[in-house]
């Protein structure tokens, strides 16, 4: 029987298989940030052991950093302390550290691909669940806990049972204003937040083949939101073209050797999956969420279902709507909003800013909206300026902030106040995710832009028609 893409990459990284136990899996590249690493470094210190392969580890500051005035000392004492700890730990162990202000600084899942750290066929981990992003390149990439961060630092391995395999096929052409974010939110709404738990997902079909690398990253990024360990897409010419020439990508004869391997990374025709799902691209509309987990989403023109219409526990559903102050049967279109957040490892890349700009161009930010536009990295920030997008944003009354995770998890000052509604391009709408008491509607950059200029939930297709007219 043929192997899947996932089998090929996983099996080639198994150092040892423990009977009735996990595999010892070799990790090619390890990304480290300030929040989930300090206790791991402390563990190394207590055991008096070094980092085994500092050159396979890369550190950046992103989760707990301000997105304005990054040239000034960080005011929050605990945050400053955490940043100092990472700088010190990286320095002591000889790990490259791209701290605040560094030209390569940015969100860990944006800078990995940007700098060629992310390559096909690699195993990549990070103490962050959205590490699944890197699967867009045909890598096995997933989030780990701090104990596992310590394991990888100490031994370049983790111990995990091999997950089951799922393939999600989407064929056809996406409709107007349907972005990769909508594709992912659609899948999650069908599977629920636990529908892929225990599985590693491969995305296949014409929709993903046609998608840009940025789009593929958005889709793989959200794999964890349906419970999957990770998601991946077979590498192709687009992938190789993206990786080629980036700083940490293989060069010269190493490149040729790597390419010879990468071209074998696809699922064979007779390979089988534990679960296989197929959807039609035409089913997908621009999406929005109405509840307190990413599975509670639907096409933007829909109304909130009734407790009878949903599968899960009624009490949990009622708790969720009560938190959002929404009612069963409410239409989402027209709901007033207070904040818009464009950014995060899900939608903080250049393509997302292009999409946002395409809607707001020639319009004005609504007065009732506070907008936080946060590039995923300094490189994204530079591209925004070079492409003239910054001018479009500024003419419409928006400001651009400095890179970081920002309001996605609101560890820094970018917190949505209690009771306020945010249309957010990030990945989680959990209670209090964007600040204590905040209410999040997850959506694409197009839907976020439409909300930013109208001050309410608006179908971006309406604004696009006006532009064409």
């Amino acid at each position, binding site marked *: 029987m043929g192997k899947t893409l996932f089998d090929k990459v996983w099996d080639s*990284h198994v*150092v040892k298989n423990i*009977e*009735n*136990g*996990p595999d*010892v899996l*070799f990790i*090619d590249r390890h990304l480290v940030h300030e*929040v*989930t690493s*300090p*206790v791991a470094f402390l*563990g190394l210190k207590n*055991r008096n052991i070094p980092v*085994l392969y500092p050159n396979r580890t890369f550190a950046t500051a992103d*989760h*707990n950093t301000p997105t304005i005035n990054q040239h000034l000392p960080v005011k929050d004492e*605990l*945050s400053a302390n*955490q940043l100092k*700890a990472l700088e010190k730990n990286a320095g002591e162990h000889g790990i490259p550290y791209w701290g605040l202000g560094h030209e390569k600084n940015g969100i860990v899942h944006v800078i990995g691909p940007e700098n060629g750290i992310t390559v096909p066929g690699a195993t990549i981990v990070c103490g*962050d*669940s959205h590490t699944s992003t890197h699967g867009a390149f045909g890598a096995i990439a997933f*989030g*780990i*806990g*701090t*104990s596992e961060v310590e394991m990888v630092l*100490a*031994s370049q*391995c*983790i*111990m995990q*049972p091999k997950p089951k395999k799922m393939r999600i096929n989407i064929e056809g052409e996406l409709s107007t204003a349907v972005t990769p974010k909508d594709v992912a939110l659609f899948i999650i709404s069908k599977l629920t*937040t*636990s529908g892929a*738990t*225990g599985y590693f997902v491969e995305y296949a079909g014409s929709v993903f083949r046609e998608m840009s690398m940025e789009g593929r990253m958005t889709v793989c990024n959200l794999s964890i939101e349906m*419970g999957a*360990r990770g998601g991946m897409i077979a590498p192709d010419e687009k992938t190789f073209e993206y990786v080629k020439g980036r700083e940490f990508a*293989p060069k010269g004869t*190493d490149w040729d*050797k*790597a390419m010879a391997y990468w071209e074998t990374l696809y699922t064979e025709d007779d390979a089988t999956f534990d679960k296989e799902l197929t959807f039609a691209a035409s089913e997908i509309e621009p999406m929005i969420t109405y509840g307190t*987990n990413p599975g509670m989403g639907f096409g933007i023109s829909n109304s909130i279902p009734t407790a009878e219409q949903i599968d*899960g*526990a009624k*009490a*949990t559903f009622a*708790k969720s709507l009560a938190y959002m102050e929404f009612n069963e049967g409410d239409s989402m279109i027209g709901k007033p909003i207070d904040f818009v957040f464009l950014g995060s490892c899900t939608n903080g890349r250049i393509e997302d800013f292009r999409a946002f700009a395409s809607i707001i161009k020639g319009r004005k930010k609504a007065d009732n909206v506070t907008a936080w536009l946060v590039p995923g990295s300094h490189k994204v920030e530079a591209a925004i300026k070079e492409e003239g997008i910054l001018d479009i944003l500024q003419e419409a009354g928006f400001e651009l902030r400095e890179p970081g995770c920002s309001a996605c*998890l*609101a560890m820094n000052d970018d917190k949505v106040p209690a009771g306020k509604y945010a249309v957010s391009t990030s990945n*989680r709408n*959990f*209670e*209090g*995710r964007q600040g*204590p*008491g905040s209410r999040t509607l997850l959506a694409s950059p197009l839907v976020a832009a439409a909300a930013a200029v109208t001050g309410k939930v608006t179908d971006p297709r309406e604004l696009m028609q006006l532009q064409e007219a």
Partner: protein
Amino acid sequence: MAYDKFEVLTSTAVPLPIENVDTDQIIPARFLKATERKGFGDNLFRDWRYNNDGTPKESFVLNNAQYGGKILVGGKNFGSGSSREHAAWAVYDYGFRCVVSSFFADIFRNNCLNVGVLPVQVSPEFLEKIFRAIEKNPHTELKVDLPSQTITLSETGESESFDINEYKKGNLLNGFDDIDYLLNLKEDIKEFASSRPI
């Protein structure tokens, strides 16, 4: 980090019959700024447990003196979302040694096993039985027996077996951790690494 060995735990339990409890609820992100592992139990379920002014929310189960014990019983899909191990630390530091649910998110389950909290997955029917028993009598005891991989409602003797892989079971029974295992494999790992391009 070392943790106490786990063998047989008999305890009352705290019921949280809510589905999809995510790790942002277990420990909100603003409490992840520490550089050491201590004090996380104080902020376990912070925003469900306390009002904005820091006073306890009386309706939340951890503030209800009727309920207590070393076992937390949660609804389906417990621990979804962020990979923050701080969530498992908070559960442990608060005093729980076992979490029971009908379904766990992967990363949270792994994190629990790595810090000495036993995740016990039971059938939806048995979970419902546990919730009903605790509702009827908050002093209901559960017996979680790791060597025999069973969970029992002490009062009625109703029991169910649960899965755990042999390796992780051995770790919990002996208080071992993965790093000691991996350090002993170092030479194999180095040999393997020499064939992997950086």
